[in-house]
């Protein structure tokens, strides 16, 4: 078991900024999840008045956390891969496999983007909301789609600026 090939060339500045912004958004979502839950527990046991929104808050923040935090995984090429083949084939073949892995990853991200578009539009048309928090579900779908789009940009950047460069550079 291993993580993907470690990066050597840095990604373009704009992509790095996008990933940093997404990382910060995910960090805010994580802190909100934590503090919201702690406040709920505190009010429940101290004043017998739980925060009724805490359940919805956690679910909503988790959407933002996952879809925006995941771009760091792709840009840092941290996805888990099984490395039993490493000792069996030449480095040249391994670099070729890294290209295939990146293409498959980008394809899968596109697939999710495609698959999420229709339910996101339906959420917009029906206008459903989170019961306690009152946030329209399409807002959360919007955050999810935006996060996924950012992740796709990071995955493509990792492919062009890391994998392909490594492939060209090394004999």
């Amino acid at each position, binding site marked *: *078991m291993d993580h*993907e090939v470690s990066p050597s060339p840095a990604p373009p500045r704009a992509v790095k900024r996008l990933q940093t912004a997404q*990382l910060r958004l*995910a*960090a805010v979502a*994580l*802190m909100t*999840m*934590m*503090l*919201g*839950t*702690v406040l*709920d*527990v505190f009010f429940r046991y101290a004043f017998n008045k739980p925060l009724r929104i805490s*359940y919805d808050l*956690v*679910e*909503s*923040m*988790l*959407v933002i*956390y*996952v*879809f925006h*935090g*995941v771009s*760091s*995984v792709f840009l*840092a090429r*941290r*996805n*888990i*891969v*099984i*490395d*039993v*083949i490493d000792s069996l084939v030449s480095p040249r073949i*391994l670099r070729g*496999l*890294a290209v*295939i*892995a990146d293409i*498959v*990853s980008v*394809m*899968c991200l596109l*697939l*999710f983007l*495609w*698959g*999420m*578009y*229709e*339910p*996101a539009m339906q959420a917009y048309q029906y206008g459903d909301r989170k019961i306690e928090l009152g946030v329209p579900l399409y807002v*959360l*779908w919007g955050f*999810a789609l935006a996060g996924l789009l950012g992740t796709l940009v990071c995955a493509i950047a990792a492919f062009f600026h890391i994998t392909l460069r490594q492939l060209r550079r090394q004999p």
Partner: protein
Amino acid sequence: MSPGIIGALGILSLLILLFIRIPVWAALTLVGFTGNCILSGLHSALSLAGTSAFDASSAYTLSVIPLFVLLGEVASNSRLSADLFNAARLLLSGVRGGLAIATIAASACFGAVCGSSIVTAATMTRIALPEMRKAGYDDRLATGALAAGGSIGILIPPSIILVIYASIAEQSVPKLFAAALLPGILLTALYMVVATGIAIAYPHYAPRMEKASARERWKALAGPWQFILLFIVTIGGIYAGIFSPTEAAAVGAFGSIVLGFLGRRLSWATLWRSIETSITTSCLLFVIIIGANLFSSFMVQTQFPTMLADGASAMNLSAPVVMIMIVLAYIVMGCFLEGIGMVLITVPVFLPLVVKFGYDPIWFSILVVIVVEVGLIHPPVGMNLFVIQAQAPDVRITSIYRGIVPFLIAPLILIVFLFLFPSLALWLPKLLYG
């Protein structure tokens, strides 16, 4: 082509994709999506892909993952493990192999808060290995104790693998945490017995150390109070029914941050680093969970697990024989599959089979975690062994391999105990939750 054959081909394709270094999440997604496409059409498969990604990312039960990972990262960066090891070291001073036993005890306790084997092994190696070397311990015993102790982290609650298992098997997280406690304690004790046995059989591996005074021991007990407080609040809170797992994780993470700042063990920079690492670590798991959900839907449609069960019945295989075959399959897979990936790939296939043969899914979860633990420490590819070598590059990997071999007997004994006494895993959840 029957759905069962399509399922078998799907599993074969998945193994091929994993073998050629396709990331675990992408391999699961690709096979799951293609399979769903074949069985229920493109539109239905696309809709499933979109909604399952969103549903997994907004599941309240899974929010426990980032919060416990954050708790573990903050605890690791606040040097709580050093206090723990110091307390265990002084309490066990004078005992033959005391430092190795202290390492296992401290690793188990740290793993109980941290929930990650790799983080526990890495952290404890940095703290305990120099102490053991200074005391003249043989590298084989020292690294064996570190690798074994580190692996307990995924069994003793909170365990991220158990949360993931709960989400796939639709089980209650608190019940699984309760089920893991006794086997976790027993495994820790078994590892300690192995360490003591090695120290007695090979006295030069573990020179006897000077006994600390009663006052020193008493004083040492107060050292890890922050850790004890965190453990009581988080895990105690879940068992007592005061907190849900998510609440316990949030309170624990918040508490560790407050204690870190109050004790001046945590700075803003370290906190940010902890948050950053938690985001990467947990999002990495979430993409795999999303892929596994697709794969799992595909497996359900193919009824491949039912086909396996029918095949086993047709061959007149008894329930214990089937379970032994499953355990052996896990141990073999552990040679090349990563723990969480292995759970996500295999549970949708094996669980229906296990349930059909009359075993409890909660009991099976503990068995799965133990075999994943074995995978973490068995040569030649146990992840914990590489983590230890990365922290101590001057220790030869062959020494680490030799050191871990006697410790492998402990989880194997525990597996036998679980088969003989299933109540080891089932008694506490029944007592607490009925």
